[in-house]
């Protein structure tokens, strides 16, 4: 038993942290072109399809850092589309899309018709995978109707997507579980970032003659956030591992991780705003960016209540 990241996974985390630090304000498309050079879209695509041959756990490690940095690249959408096609796609669908997703030649996104994250205007080469009635439909940009939707998370592109496509014939539940882990991972990253921002501010900000972090009303809320964030991180690690090693348990584990991460991210980002006081409520501080992304992330790929109900439906 070794329930921590391997050295290789820690290396992915470290290089992602180094690459993304301080880049929240940068143009997402520019940043994404650099990320393509680093091989990020290829990370969780099999070697036979031109990828690096790593799995959902490694994708989750990367997604945590993406959430932590709260940057504007379409990484999560590309990872999601690639995981769905890899796990549930036919050989032709895989051959058609995975090599191009891996090189960044094609865009990818996935979600429900009403709101898909990380989907561009659809002008370029790319595809969208929609979850519909528990199944998965692969739609080429050429036959997709993409209507941009402005959300409170203005630094990520969202759109309504309709169109005709082909079914992914494989195990949709398992494929969706893989994506849920990645989505949950980004939320864990947001929670960890929000906590770090809270702690840094609480050490520094002095009121009543002492750092506000010396007040238990503040420090205990931070401790509660740590419990929630680390608990969710543990659930994401397990679910990512289960996707490869215990696929029969992956849907349950992924729903559980998503429920934990959705709640942790919303609470951590809300707590960060509160700990920062008036500054937290301002447009200038980055906290509202974290908060808004957490709200969208929590709403997509299964809300916490939806995930919890699915746990009880399958339990015992």
């Amino acid at each position: 038993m070794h329930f921590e990241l391997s050295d290789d996974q820690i290396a992915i985390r470290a290089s992602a942290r180094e690459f993304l630090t301080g880049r929240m304000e940068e143009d997402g498309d520019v940043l994404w072109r650099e990320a393509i050079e680093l091989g990020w879209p290829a990370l969780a695509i099999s070697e036979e399809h031109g990828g690096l041959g790593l799995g959902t756990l490694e994708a989750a490690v990367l997604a945590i850092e993406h959430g932590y940095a709260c940057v504007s690249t379409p990484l999560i959408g590309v990872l999601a589309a690639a995981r769905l096609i890899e796990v549930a796609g036919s050989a032709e669908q895989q051959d058609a899309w995975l090599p191009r997703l891996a090189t960044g030649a094609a865009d990818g996104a996935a979600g429900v018709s009403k709101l898909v994250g990380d989907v561009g205007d659809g002008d370029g080469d790319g595809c969208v995978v929609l979850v519909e009635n528990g199944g998965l439909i692969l739609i080429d940009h050429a036959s997709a109707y993409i209507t941009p939707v402005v959300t409170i998370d203005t630094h990520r592109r969202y759109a309504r997507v309709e169109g005709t496509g082909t079914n992914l014939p494989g195990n949709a539940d398992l494929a969706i579980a893989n994506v849920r882990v990645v989505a949950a991972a980004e939320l864990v990253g947001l929670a960890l970032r929000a906590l770090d921002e809270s702690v840094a501010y609480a050490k520094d900000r002095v009121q009543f003659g002492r750092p506000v972090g010396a007040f238990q009303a503040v420090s205990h809320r931070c401790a509660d956030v740590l419990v929630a964030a680390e608990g969710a991180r543990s659930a994401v690690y397990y679910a990512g591992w289960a996707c490869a090693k215990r696929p029969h348990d992956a849907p349950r584990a992924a729903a559980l991780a998503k429920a934990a991460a959705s709640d942790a991210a919303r609470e951590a980002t809300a707590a960060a705003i509160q700990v920062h006081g008036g500054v937290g409520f301002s447009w200038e501080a980055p906290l509202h960016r974290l908060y808004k992304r957490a709200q969208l992330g929590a709403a997509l790929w299964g809300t916490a209540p939806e995930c919890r109900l699915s746990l009880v439906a399958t339990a015992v």
Partner: protein
Amino acid sequence: LNLTDSPAEAALRGELTVWLSTNTAGTAPERREDWFDWRRAWQRTLASGGWCGVHWPKEYGGRGASITQSAIFFEELARAGEPLPANSLGLLLAGPTIMAWGTPGQKERFLPPILPADEIWCQGFSEPDAGSDLAALRTRAERVPDGWQLSGQKVWTSHAVHAKWCAVVARSNIDSTRHHGLTFCLLDLEQEGVTIRPLREMTGDAHFNEIFLDRAFVPDAHVLGPVGDGWKVAMTMLMNERSGLAFFWQVRLRQLLDRLVEEARTRGLLADPRNADRLGALQVQVECLRLTAYRGLTVLAETGQPGAEGSLTKLMWSRANQEVTQAAVDLLGLEALEGGSEWAYEMLRSRGNTIEGGTSEILKNIVAERVLGLPRGR
């Protein structure tokens, strides 16, 4: 990252499950006051099978198992529905502390009778005015020929009525304050000058005791560690969760929740989404606890030091235990509140979980200061 057993871990788990399939403590006695003797007999059975002190080094009669193997022991013990051995404080706290600080003579004298529960241990730290603030303790150790005389009062001492030995921290330098001038004594409870009075808890049980010390004698040979350095020895004892015992309680909690979900399903209560959502949330809590505990175990196994995760799991477990048992009472209704209801007992017992072994408030201070690096507060 890998949650499957290594060959050595699988071997121990396999050997243990085979042993547990033919050895059992048997049904719990009807009266809870008889449970201690039942668990004492069970410890002797465990010891005869070589299953006591799994994490103790072989030279002291243990198995010399790794921390992960010891956690597996507690996990499987709970899964089999068996109770903890009676002398847990001796096995998990006093024994390892004596190994760390004891003289060869002390190790030889005190360690062997712990394993078969021939001598039961208790822990005399808390006092009426020194609970979370242990350094405020006032029990005095006065110098007499060949030893020390202890006077004062200890409280919340589990199993003292059954115990032969009590690990006591006392103030040996009367002019000292806080954590200075303390000495760690191994006190024989079977003597004049020691009065033990059971304390009844809110469950109705009386596991706790008060201990009144009136010039109780501790010979020099029974002082553990240097005179005046008792705080360090006490910290060794308090930090000595190196056994994986938490995995026993974590499995118990899981079993409790599974029973509740099953009971709710049988009664058709899951059709109400409020119930289903609540039970789903508890599953999330309990599973996050389990997985975080595995991360903590990995850090401990690889570095020998508990990481951040270790301080989080007690907070998670105690809260989850309270919420699971409260949910049981809410879902199952009035019958769960009848006297003798097991759910009611578990709910009442769980109120102690956020107090014993460090209150949640103190644990959050520790997390805030040592894990998050926030300034020390009050």
